[in-house]
């Protein structure tokens, strides 16, 4: 029987631990401090899943990996790859090759062998620099950081997605989802800071990742190229969008943000740790709303 890949409807985003969520700096530091102990993050992840989240959206950072190692049960992870902090990303030259070189340096022997094999099978040595050919090698390194059993999805991080989007790299968006599904048996997504433009391009190209992740909120914050264009694309019902940054950096409540995103065609939502005070209670509330629009 052919396996189907469905986009998640409710995720707990821990992207604030990676420092990339749009929230006041003090709030990010507070969240990072609160979850400094792996036990506290591990408990939160379990509670989120128990409250109805399909999984956790985040990079396999040391904090997330340590928390997952604390747990005996499987928490589905929608891994945002490559796992790089903003400052680490800034220190590298642009393009995919410096990311691969860094991942190779940090990988264990088994991961390096797997990277080599994936590269060999895709003739990627002859296409150095090409995102479509080389990103799979990078994903191998990132995915090896997580327990394989819990890997429910692979989401290409926004710096890579938006670079390829800027270059109209159609092959990247067509081939990566196929690779992710075939190699990891997981859903494939793209994180973006330009959701309207990405949805438009995917529609024009006929490319079909399982979902994209991007900001949707009542203030239009981050809904590039324009909120009205993003909403129009959402209304067309193409590739499912899982909404983030629903509180618009704190300008509205999570309830308002979720209501707005779902009302305007978002398939699912991924509220962030930085957007919630009581994760269990608020996720249950979001889950109830999702059930209402199902």
């Amino acid at each position, binding site marked *: 029987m052919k396996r189907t890949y469905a986009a998640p409807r409710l995720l707990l985003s821990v992207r604030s631990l990676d420092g990339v969520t749009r929230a006041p700096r003090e709030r990010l530091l507070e969240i990072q401090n609160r979850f400094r102990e792996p036990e506290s993050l591990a408990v939160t992840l379990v509670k989120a899943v128990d409250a109805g989240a399909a999984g956790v959206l985040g990079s396999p950072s040391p904090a997330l990996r340590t928390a997952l190692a604390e747990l005996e049960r499987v928490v589905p992870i929608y891994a945002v790859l490559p796992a790089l902090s903003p*400052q680490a990303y800034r220190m590298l030259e*642009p*393009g*995919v090759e410096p990311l691969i070189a860094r991942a190779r340096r940090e990988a264990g022997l088994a991961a390096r062998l797997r990277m080599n094999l994936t590269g060999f099978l895709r003739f990627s040595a002859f296409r150095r620099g090409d995102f479509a050919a080389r990103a799979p090698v990078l994903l191998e390194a990132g995915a090896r950081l997580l327990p394989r059993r819990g890997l429910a999805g692979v989401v290409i991080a926004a710096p890579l997605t938006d670079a390829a989007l*800027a*270059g109209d*790299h159609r092959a990247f968006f067509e081939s990566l989802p196929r690779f992710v599904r075939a190699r990891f048996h997981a859903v494939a997504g793209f994180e973006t800071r330009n959701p309207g433009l990405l949805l438009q391009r995917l529609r024009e190209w006929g490319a079909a990742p399982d979902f994209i992740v991007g900001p949707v909120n009542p203030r239009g914050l981050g809904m590039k190229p324009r909120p009205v264009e993003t909403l129009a694309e959402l209304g067309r019902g193409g590739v499912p969008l899982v909404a983030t940054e629903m509180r618009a950096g704190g300008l509205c409540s999570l309830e308002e943000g979720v209501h707005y995103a779902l009302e305007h065609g978002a398939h699912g939502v991924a509220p962030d740790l930085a957007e919630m005070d009581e994760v269990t209670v608020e996720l249950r509330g979001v889950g109830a709303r999702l059930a209402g629009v199902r």
Partner: protein
Amino acid sequence: MSAKAGPSDGPVALPLVTQRVAVVGLGRAGVAHAVMLAHVPGCELAAVADPRSSARAALRGMGFKVPAFARVERLLDRVRPDAVVVCAAQHERARVARLVLEAGIPVLVERPMARTLEEAEALVLLASKRRIPLAVSHPLAFEPVFARVHEVVREGVLGPVEHARSAMFVSRIFAPRPRRGPGRLDPRRVAGGVAAHLGSDLLFVLVRMLGVPVEVRAEWNLLYGAVEDELHGMMTLADGAEVGFDCSWSVPGYSRASTVIELDGPDGKLLASDEALELDLKRAGAGFPSGYSRLRDADFDAPARFDFGGEALWSHDAAFLDWVAGGAVPANEAFAALDAHRVMDALYRSAAAGGTRAKVAT
């Protein structure tokens, strides 16, 4: 109490005719400009140049199918763009910008525009004599919060500024830099460390807003190499007001660059950061009521059509192209940028001399 955000200072006009623009230098800044230019309506990324084949391959690997050259001379011969964004290495920047200006083509050059003040002055003189648009990359001036701060100060809402403090921090350098390769910062090839690379953007905003200081004093810390990782400066304006200026790329807790400006005047106080603008005014002005007001960054217009690490770079590049097409002169035109370069030069002279007072060149 919150006031509604008004229009930002940075013009976000769009070019009226198609501009064919080239980017020279494909490091992080060059690629960011290439991405932005590809999304400014009426702009076409016509060509790129970088001596490193790996850098050209990296851009091609992102999907950009534009002619790529190893040498800028060849690019100018073959493509003849309407404008060039120069992001070459600092020791090459002035030479490349001069080549382009001598070809009669407008230039947007990455900051600092040259490694030395003399080179910068020669560039500005050349552009002025030939009447060719020359601008320097200072996106902070186009950040909606800081553009609004500029308006507030220029409208005199605070009265004459008596004290100012400012800081720009990011968590970036926490280990000795490599002795060779891309991460190296050789003092013979760069204008400086954190102040030249990062703080000069804040310096530009301050100088444009408050005027050119008459003298400065500064101290620096060289933590991980031969250029400064921290710089603490104090600048004295012509009317005696003091402006504090701190920058560091070696402080933890700043995953994104963070900028703060505090201003005190007889009629009010202002605190601006990347996250909010707060005002406490004795009387209403510049669209703000008397008393306390706070606007968050999300309250401001966000005109950029593409986000590749922030809002400002798109507006910044669009404003330059508008100028090239005959529109308004942007905030970051070269004469204004040269003033900031002169202040940076004075800060470096003072720090090198152990914190003695240094006059700002005029």
